């Protein structure tokens, strides 16, 4: 699921103090984005609270907020899935997600960037991973968001086990980039290598590296 919130063009052009109303449920004050983990751990054994995350994703300088929720579906490769179970090597996964977010924040000039990934059993329809990006305009927020989820899926030491309705289970859907790149540390992403030029004319950052870990 991808949800994007975009203010009206007039609001995007407004000065920051008027771009974000001070009503309940909004947070007009810029957040310290050096590390989200105090409020929202990168790896969580608890259900991910999308509403609370989104409530913390508003910024007076951001006219666009994109929320991606990776959710558990009930089938994969023709098999009926009962649930997924995730595990991670937490210290490294948290560090990598933090670094991925920080790099994206700098490359796409994001005002807010948040991400969390579940571990433990996750039911059908529940959120396994969430990425939120907020930026002045939507092109950066969309591009950064997709780049972040690609990198988390390929690089972070997080693994899923699929439990099927027939009672069997299987660790699977691993990143298989090494079979193409010949290097366990090099990945091929679904996303284009960075918005160096977009249809909106946004002079985005240069191509992000194809490997950082």
């Amino acid at each position, binding site marked *: 699921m991808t949800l994007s919130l975009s203010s009206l063009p007039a609001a995007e052009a407004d000065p920051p103090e008027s771009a974000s109303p001070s009503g309940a449920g909004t947070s007009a004050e810029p957040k310290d984005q050096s590390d989200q983990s105090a409020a929202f751990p990168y790896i969580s054994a608890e259900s991910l609270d999308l509403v609370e995350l989104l409530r913390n994703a508003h910024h007076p300088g951001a006219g666009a907020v994109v929320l991606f929720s990776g959710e558990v579906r009930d089938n994969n490769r023709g098999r009926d899935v009962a649930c997924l179970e995730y595990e*991670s*090597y937490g210290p490294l996964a948290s560090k990598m997600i933090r670094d991925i977010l920080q790099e994206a924040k700098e490359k796409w000039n994001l005002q807010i960037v948040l991400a969390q*990934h579940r571990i433990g059993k996750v039911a059908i329809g529940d959120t396994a991973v969430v990425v939120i990006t907020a930026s002045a305009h939507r092109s950066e927020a969309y591009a950064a968001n997709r780049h972040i989820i690609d990198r988390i899926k390929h690089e972070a*030491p997080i*693994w899923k086990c699929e439990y099927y309705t027939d009672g069997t289970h299987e*660790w699977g859907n*691993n*990143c298989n980039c*090494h079979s193409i790149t010949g290097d*366990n540390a090099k990945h091929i992403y679904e996303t284009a290598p960075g918005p160096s030029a977009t249809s909106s004319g946004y002079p985005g950052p240069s191509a992000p590296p194809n490997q950082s870990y």
Partner: protein
Amino acid sequence: MKVHVYAALKEYFTPEFELAEPIRNTDELKVCLLAINATAGEILKTCRFAVEDGFIDNDFKLKEHDTVIIVPPSSGG
């Protein structure tokens, strides 16, 4: 040296175990792991190794009290 394995590797090794023999680098560790379970060769080729919160390569000098994490390919999301 302590060794922790995750995900599909748990079908080849116990999740956490200790190795008594001195192991100086990841190549020596792979040999030791294959001696424990020779069928793990293919999956070990796809794995990376980490100590604490960083990946290591074969140049990293492993120490007796290190805990080495064996990291199979990711499947998050």
